[in-house]
């Protein structure tokens, strides 16, 4: 069942990315942009690779105003018999913006669950939960399509790891 869920979520990520890739900017309804070409659509969904959602995940962002956005990313994947799930809310701040290009930084916790099944009878395997954090700086392009690339540091009780990620999504 977990296998099936993992596969469905994987298919979901692929389907979302495909829809985003084939959609053309400007085709849809009125474009709420400023005279300078800045998008004012507050909502976006995205599929990401690495970034805030483990190996890959699906996220939603909401721009609170011109400077702040909140994002939530969730992921679930299987890696050689191990199951990993993450949930990562974050608060982002636009450091720089011009037309469709923005530089942002965000910070938030990352909850991670890992399940390792056991290959032997007397050790039951392991299901564990942990909390870490992530701080990132990234580039965002917004024009109905939302593309982000980020560099981050993921930290937890075992130290810090450099991280990064890319995402592609749509705004409305």
């Amino acid at each position: 069942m977990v296998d099936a869920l993992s596969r469905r979520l994987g298919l979901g990520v692929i389907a979302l990315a495909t829809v985003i890739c084939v959609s053309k900017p400007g085709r849809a309804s009125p474009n709420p942009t400023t005279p300078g070409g800045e998008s004012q659509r507050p909502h976006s969904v995205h599929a990401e690779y690495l970034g805030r959602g483990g190996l890959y995940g699906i996220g939603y962002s909401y721009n609170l105003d011109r400077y702040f956005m909140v994002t939530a990313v969730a992921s679930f994947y299987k890696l050689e018999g191990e199951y990993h799930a993450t949930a990562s809310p974050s608060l982002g701040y636009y450091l720089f913006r011009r037309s469709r290009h923005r530089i942002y930084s965000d910070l938030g916790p990352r909850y991670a669950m890992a399940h390792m099944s056991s290959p032997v009878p007397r050790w039951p395997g392991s299901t564990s939960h942990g909390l870490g954090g992530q701080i990132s700086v990234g580039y965002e392009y917004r024009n109905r399509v939302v593309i982000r690339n980020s560099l981050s540091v993921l930290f937890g009780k075992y130290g810090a790891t450099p991280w990064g990620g890319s995402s592609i999504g749509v705004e409305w």
Partner: protein
Amino acid sequence: MVRFALALLLVFGACQVEMVPGSDWMDVSEARLPAVHSLDLIDTGPVDALRVATYNVEFAPDPELFADTILADDDLSKVDVFLLQEIESYRSEGVARAQTMAASLDMNFIYVPSNSEDGGDHGLAILSSLPMSNPRVMYLPKSKRIIRPRNRIALSVDIVVDAKVVTLATVHLDVRLNIGNRISQVHPFVSTAAAPMIITGDYNTNPYHWSGSQPVLTETTTIGPTQAELFDEYFEAYGYLAPTKGSGPTQHSLAGDFRLDGIHTKGLSPGDYGVVRNLGISDHDPVWLDLTF
């Protein structure tokens, strides 16, 4: 696109890697590469306590330097039995490095190669100030998907402490394994060993997740649990103690400091333990443990 293809591969292709079965325990005379040993020439007399140490010596290019370093250290100079990993022997050097080290430490020794190297071989050794008997070797299961897989062995001997026969074994496990396969690699002998038993080694319990031979960083690298913690849990489920689990890192590299080495005991009373750091002669630190009887 490459990243996306990798994600696809992970979604659809990442099932647990199959392991090729290993062997049963066999006498070292049946080992695939010839063993060298002098098991019982040295006998320091009966003892009622024991200090053991596990040490990945990173090929021990200068075995006399290792011996001198050990003798100069307060903790290591009191060790009765060293269980060594990643030690090599070259025909051009005349004698096995384990033999040179044992001679300098006035200890018995056994060296069993697991793999041939250019002009020599590479394997495990046990050095003991007590007589050793019943030397055995087991070829461990190995991963089918690892590029250039190497033979992995367990080496075991018996010694007598306080009139009890104690079995000691050492292993050096593959790097590119996730926890399930790491357990599968040691399970054939961990699950069948009778107490009193001491298992030591370079377990290579690194914090990465592996997809085939590629490391894939996931959040558990920083958030946990680590392979070292899960490996200890596995041993404990099979009736072992993990007395050195609080040792902290035992290996140092550019990628970080990791707890790769450890000692597990069954049917024995472990006492003090320690890690001797900053010796500067291997990328691993030796871990020692006292046992009372």
